[in-house]
């Protein structure tokens, strides 16, 4: 019931329309569509209105999305592209909410509309339309231009938190609206208010509305949802029921404010919120305080930091639903409202009582029960956070759920038809490990905490305590964003020129963008196609400036800077800015795993790690980067193109320093203390999340999750030790094929049973140790000093595992 996204979608898109703008005499109309068979008169009638929601001047390329809602309350997304050079607007209707993918698709279409061969567009649309959708995380690709070019996107994975800057909507929202206003809107949505967003820019408008909805995940706005409201539907603003409507500034001007009644208005251009309510202050204070705190830490907000901060707030608010679940063998799992309220802190109870009556909460509970009753278990990001938040409950719950599921299985009911296929691999791992092991770690942690307190080296302490929990993914992502901004400042002309260079430079590159076979994965066909189409100008996209602003204004991120500053080759980035390095365009958004050791990250500008930055935001998915397939990166390729560590040592202050070489340069890299995400690691073991301490205080909350950083502290800041910190949990880490973590093996409890799955899971979270291991190995073969300590770390981590027994 709850979901408004359609399932079992057959086609990438439902219909493509080209829409002619309105004239004083005539309304906007569809001049052509594909396929002709698409015939939903209501929808087709609406498309022109949404494509030209009001009379506007177009000076830059605008991408925006609108949403149509059918009678079953399912959404159809319309993605729209306005090009000042084009007479018409391009619109794609689809059931899939893959924003980045469709903007890219539209760009591709725009290029093809200029194609000298007029059949190109039709053929392309036909091929895309008829191509079956791949499973989540896999590539959807279609060749076109007589097989010369390729359009490829990665199907987003489930349960992915939007991250900055990959997720265009969130990036826009975060850029336009400050944290306190985001919180106001968040609170207003939880109270199901009538909410208006307004902006002069359609791109910003639709992105903010979409993103505001993303941020209340795992809840989903159940009411009227119109990211862009056309002038013709202005009366919708008088609706007495809750709504979230993006109203273009021009349209809002036409409404009498007093007709609308009580409404929350966010002006995304001015960054102001007007509200007659006091919803934010009516949320439980502890939730607000920790949310504020997390959002204040700007450096932690890249990656999925923003999404996660709000997710945590929701965990605090409603994660307790788990304690009110009722498991009765042989029956469906049910939810007990009273138990839910009673189990919550007294301070939260008034709000929660209120919450029970909200549509979004009811939807949430129903969806969770459905997940459980299907045997899917607790597998999404919300549950992972909830586990982290309250470990005790989690393990008890999992035990209960396990018993319940096994009963269900024994009874041979057809209850879970596809449990085995569907269940998150992590589900299969044993609860017992956590329960038994948890205690050991807990005491170990206590000891550690006291040690940390004594530790005068506050710099490191802070790093370990603050960053890992708050911005697990941001640390690795940040440099990405930074560099990306450089890239986008490059004017169009440069782009074009470089695109052409790109072509000519192919021959010398190990992975030529034009020979897709040699490309491991390349969803960037579009870019290739662009470069294949000299003469087609790729104009400046408005968002780029926005992003640049964002990155400049908001990226005072010490951890990032620290890892960047010492890097001489940062200058290389400036010169060979993304757009001028053709290879980058050839690479898909399966960026280097966020866990990448900074050095690797920084010094693989020609490899997978950086392509993220180098693509237009359209190309980047919010999904965690998919590591390159193993087969693709042969040793040759690796040494041929990527950077590798050739030596190492220590700087005068003891920080490890590495020499990293690529084809053209050798750079000295100083590594910052590890800010590696414990979350990542935990995700990889999603089922066995350990919450060692039950306090809800965010201060305590953080370090607890970062046992890997603990390890590294113990190692006294050995950068690569951070990677080691993951050993116990990343069982399939190929890096350790050489010395098997035996403690783990013995301790197995089924965790290692299915290493394939583990590996997949790791990949899902963007961890591919295959890739790392190569760089490690290469480093090692080059007599790489810092590996001594690495080994030491390893020993210690093993010993930690011994404790688990």
């Amino acid at each position: 019931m709850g979901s408004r996204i359609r399932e079992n979608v057959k086609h990438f898109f439902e219909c493509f329309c080209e829409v002619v703008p309105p004239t004083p005499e005539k309304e906007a109309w569809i001049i052509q569509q594909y396929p002709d068979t698409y015939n939903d008169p209501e929808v087709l009638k609406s498309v022109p209105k949404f494509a030209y929601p009001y009379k506007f001047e177009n000076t830059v390329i605008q991408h925006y999305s609108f949403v149509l809602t059918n009678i079953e309350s399912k959404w159809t997304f319309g993605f729209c592209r306005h090009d000042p050079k084009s007479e018409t607007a391009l619109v794609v209707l689809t059931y899939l909410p893959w924003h980045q993918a469709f903007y890219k698709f539209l760009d591709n279409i725009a290029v093809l509309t200029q194609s000298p061969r007029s059949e190109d567009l039709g053929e392309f649309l036909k091929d895309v339309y008829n191509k079956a959708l791949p499973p989540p995380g896999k590539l959807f690709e279609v060749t076109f231009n007589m097989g010369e070019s390729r359009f490829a996107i990665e199907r987003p994975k489930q349960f992915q938190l939007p991250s900055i800057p990959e997720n265009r909507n969130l990036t826009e929202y975060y850029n336009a609206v400050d944290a306190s206003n985001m919180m106001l809107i968040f609170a207003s949505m939880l109270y199901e208010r009538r909410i208006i967003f307004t902006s002069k820019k359609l791109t910003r408008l639709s992105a903010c509305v979409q993103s505001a909805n993303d941020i209340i995940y795992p809840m989903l706005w159940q009411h009227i949802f119109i990211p862009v409201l056309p002038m013709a539907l202005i009366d919708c603003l008088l609706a007495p029921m809750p709504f979230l409507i993006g109203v273009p500034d021009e349209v809002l001007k036409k409404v009498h404010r007093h007709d609308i009644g009580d409404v929350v208005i966010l002006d995304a251009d001015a960054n102001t919120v007007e509200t007659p309510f006091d919803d934010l202050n009516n949320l439980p204070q502890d939730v607000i305080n920790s949310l504020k705190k997390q959002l204040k830490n700007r450096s932690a907000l890249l990656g999925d930091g923003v999404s996660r901060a709000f997710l945590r707030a929701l965990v605090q608010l409603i994660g307790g639903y788990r304690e009110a679940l009722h498991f009765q063998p042989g029956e469906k799992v049910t939810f007990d409202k009273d138990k839910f309220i009673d189990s919550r802190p007294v301070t939260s109870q008034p709000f929660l009582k209120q919450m029970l009556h909200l549509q979004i909460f009811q939807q949430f509970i129903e969806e969770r029960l459905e997940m459980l009753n299907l045997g899917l278990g607790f597998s999404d990001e919300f549950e992972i956070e909830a586990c982290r938040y309250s470990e005790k409950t989690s393990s008890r719950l999992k035990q209960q759920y396990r018993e319940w599921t096994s009963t269900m299985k024994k009874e041979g009911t057809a209850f879970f038809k596809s449990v085995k296929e569907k269940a998150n691999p992590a589900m299969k791992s044993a609860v017992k490990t956590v329960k038994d092991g948890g205690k050991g770690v807990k005491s170990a942690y206590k000891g550690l905490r006291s040690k940390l307190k004594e530790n005068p080296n506050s710099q490191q302490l802070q790093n370990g305590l603050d960053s890992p929990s708050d911005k697990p993914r941001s640390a690795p992502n940040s440099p990405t964003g930074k560099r990306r901004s450089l890239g986008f400042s490059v004017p169009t002309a440069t782009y074009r020129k470089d695109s052409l260079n790109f072509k000519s430079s192919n021959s010398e590159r190990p992975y030529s963008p034009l020979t897709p076979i040699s490309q491991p994965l390349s969803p960037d066909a579009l870019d290739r196609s662009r470069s294949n189409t000299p003469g087609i100008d790729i104009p400046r996209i408005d968002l780029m400036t926005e992003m640049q602003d964002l990155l400049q204004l908001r990226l005072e991120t010490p951890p990032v800077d620290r890892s960047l500053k010492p890097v001489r080759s940062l200058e290389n980035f400036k010169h060979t800015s993304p757009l001028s390095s053709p290879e980058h365009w050839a690479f898909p958004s399966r960026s280097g795993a966020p866990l990448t050791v900074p050095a690797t990250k920084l010094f693989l500008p020609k490899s997978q790690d950086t392509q993220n930055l180098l693509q237009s935001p359209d190309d980047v998915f919010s999904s965690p980067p998919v590591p390159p397939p193993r087969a693709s990166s042969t040793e040759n390729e690796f040494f041929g193109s990527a950077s590798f560590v050739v030596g190492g040592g220590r700087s005068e202050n003891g920080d490890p320093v590495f020499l990293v070489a690529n084809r053209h340069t050798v750079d000295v890299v100083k590594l910052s203390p590890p800010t590696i995400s414990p979350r990542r690691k935990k995700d990889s073991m999603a089922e066995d999340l350990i919450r060692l301490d039950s306090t809800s205080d965010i201060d305590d909350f953080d370090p607890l999750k970062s046992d890997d950083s603990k390890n590294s502290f113990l190692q006294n800041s050995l950068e690569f030790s951070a990677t080691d910190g993951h050993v116990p949990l990343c069982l399939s880490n190929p890096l350790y094929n050489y010395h098997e973590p035996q403690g783990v093996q013995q301790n197995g409890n089924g965790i290692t049973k299915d290493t394939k799955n583990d590996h997949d899971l790791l990949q899902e979270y963007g961890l591919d140790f295959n890739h790392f291991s190569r760089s490690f190995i290469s480093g090692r073969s080059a007599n790489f000093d810092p590996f001594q300590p690495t080994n030491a770390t390893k020993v210690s981590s093993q010993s930690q595992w011994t404790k688990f027994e």
Partner: protein
Amino acid sequence: MEDFKFLFKVVLVGNAGVGKTCLVRRFTQGLFPPGQGATIGVDFMIKTVEVENEKVKLQIWDTAGQERFRSITQSYYRSAHALILVYDISCQPTFDCLPDWLREIEEYASSKVLRILVGNKIDREDREIPTVVGEDFAARHNMYFLETSAKEAENVEKLFMKIAEDLMQQARSKDLPRYDSITTNISGRTSSISDSNCCSKLT
């Protein structure tokens, strides 16, 4: 938006298939905007009528699929002036659900909201709920009652005109739960009471 003296918001609720949409369509036939419900998730009709020489704009909001909710919660009723609860006289289950609907309405809607019970589809031969049963139910719950046929246009005009007149009377006696201009107390438990003039500008 054109001029009008009064603006009243009317919300229709009731099980799926009882003919809510048809009812509204019949009343506003051919008027703006036809059938947006199919595309934006809410169906609303606007009709301006004249009551006692005053222009009254009736906005009739159809749930357009909100029946998917097992129950519609407070936010849905928050700012309606009148609620029309519809059942199908040829379908017992739609009548049996009325107490559930009513419970929600009583819990969430303003106590002053005008409530009308409508038995629709009186053109059908296979009546299951006698008129008197409907009347009785309405009387017990302090609601107006009317039987209609959207198909035959029977009592439809009367229904909405009655609502317009009643609301206007309420408005004149200042007894109307007003959501516009001056926001007064809404019985929702947490609804803040405020005046739109004092919108706090929070930045």
